[in-house]
């Protein structure tokens, strides 16, 4: 109930943010522009539409999560609305979870609308509904949920600008860390390999949520990957939220 109230107010606040609509405009533009790009391209036009469309949903969704998420907790502290909230019988963990769920709900609505535009354009070309596209969008959303948790973690102790940089770094590292896996395969056993393995274990691997290539090119996906990627997303999000709660619980609000 209390978490729901905080989530509700966060949703109301997020949907008033102009950045949300600006990013949504560019995402929609990107999705629609995929149709133009397809016309200019030699080859399978539908693949271009799917590729650019899914990339637009992913990139602009991540920007929404970072740019709105990093200001959420900070604004409450900066404007001192937090004093009123935490003087009520509300656990600090409930506050963080409410903020998180409010933004996740906002991103769900935005992803849904972007996906509907995207699916409509794909449908106009193929005249069929492809289930694989839902899978790709679903995992993009799971990635957004994780990025939201990261944005809220940084927002609980840092300014929006720094938090945005940290969260963006997390996103970029997450999409490049799979390179370590390739290095690991080519390294000889030894302390160096152990170090790289430890690094790879600690760093996020957001490629776990990237099914775009397989879906666009119709490549087979082993069924076990779905579950492991899903569990990876849920556990990593829970871990980051746990960290955010720990940081937030220890804070003094001067």
């Amino acid at each position: 109930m209390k978490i729901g109230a905080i989530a509700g107010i966060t949703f109301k606040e997020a949907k008033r943010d102009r950045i949300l609509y600006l990013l949504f405009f560019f995402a929609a533009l990107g999705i629609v522009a995929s149709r133009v790009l397809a016309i200019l391209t030699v080859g399978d036009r539908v693949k271009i539409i799917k590729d650019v469309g899914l990339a637009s949903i992913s990139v602009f969704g991540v920007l929404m999560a970072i740019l709105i998420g990093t200001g959420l907790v900070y604004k409450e502290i900066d404007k001192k609305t937090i004093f009123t909230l935490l003087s009520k019988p509300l656990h600090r963990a409930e506050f963080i979870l409410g903020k998180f769920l409010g933004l996740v709900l906002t991103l769900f609505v935005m992803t849904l609308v972007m996906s509907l535009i995207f699916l409509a354009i794909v449908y106009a070309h193929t005249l069929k509904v492809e289930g694989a596209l839902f899978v790709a969008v679903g995992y993009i959303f799971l990635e957004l949920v994780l990025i939201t948790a990261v944005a809220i973690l940084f927002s609980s102790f840092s300014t929006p600008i720094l938090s945005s940089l940290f969260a963006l770094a997390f996103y970029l590292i997450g999409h490049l860390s799979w390179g370590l896996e390739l290095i690991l395969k080519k390294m000889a056993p030894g302390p160096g390999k152990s170090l790289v393995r430890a690094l790879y274990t600690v760093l996020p691997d957001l490629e776990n949520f990237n099914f775009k290539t397989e879906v666009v090119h119709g490549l087979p996906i082993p069924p076990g990957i779905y579950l492991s990627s899903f569990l990876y997303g849920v556990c990593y999000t829970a871990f980051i939220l746990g960290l955010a709660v720990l940081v937030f619980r220890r804070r003094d609000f001067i």
Partner: protein
Amino acid sequence: MADAIRIDNLRKNFRLGFIPKTKPILKGISFSVRQGEIFGYLGPNGAGKTTTIKCLLGLIYPDAGTIEIFGRSHLSPHSRQSLGFLPENPYFYDYLTASEFLAFTADLFGLDRAEKDERTARLLKLVGLERAAGLPLRKFSRGMLQRVGLAQALINDPRLVVLDEPLGGMDPIGRKEIRDIIVRFKAEGKTVFFTSHILQDIEMICDRVAIIVGGRIVKEGGLRDLVSEKVLFTEVTVSGIPPQAFAGLGESVSAQADRVLLKVYDESRVEEVLALVREQKGRLVSLSPRTETLEDIFVETVTRA
């Protein structure tokens, strides 16, 4: 019966600056607020009043000491179930209307819909905002925000109300209304703990006060025990007599037109002044004995500390 608030040896240091330097804010304060009383917490700017309140509400963790609310640890959410708080210079979500904001705070106490609607309507009426209930808070003046703040502090029908500068930003009529509401709390058996710079208001409604200076409680007690009823001096305004005529009887504070304002420190001399006025056919405009006020005590205490 447990005290409404019991603070024992509370200490808090802040670490400020790029290279953190420890600055003690609260240096071991102790006091208690009894159930059902109005308690005024006074101090100059930066004395530690708001820090004490933030510690009480769990917004800041003390370095040492204990705080109890109705016999329970202040950090237990249960103790905050029976507490209402109005922050200084309140700022709320400005895109919500007053009704929406109160409904939101009611949700944080888990009130059901009927109770929420009833309390929202009743409190908006109590603070005189029923006509502005549907306006977004960004259109509210400072005084109106203060009223919304007071309403949200009462949404859970608290036993203890903590008010940080509740009279700041209010016009004289608003101040009187808020004072009346605070006095009504006492009649309803609620405990009120509040800070204010407006000492006349504190003097009018408080049962007990504590004065904090530099992070230490320097005076605490019942208002009647602190403020004596001894006459400090008598102010006499007389017309039609030159000020020189009162030489030796009192200190002439001002002489404008044919009026003279005298400060007579010795009570026995007041009769002599009156006799002189009768004798020289002057006119007595006013005569007022000045007893000690809370402001005198406050200024003296702060200056001495």
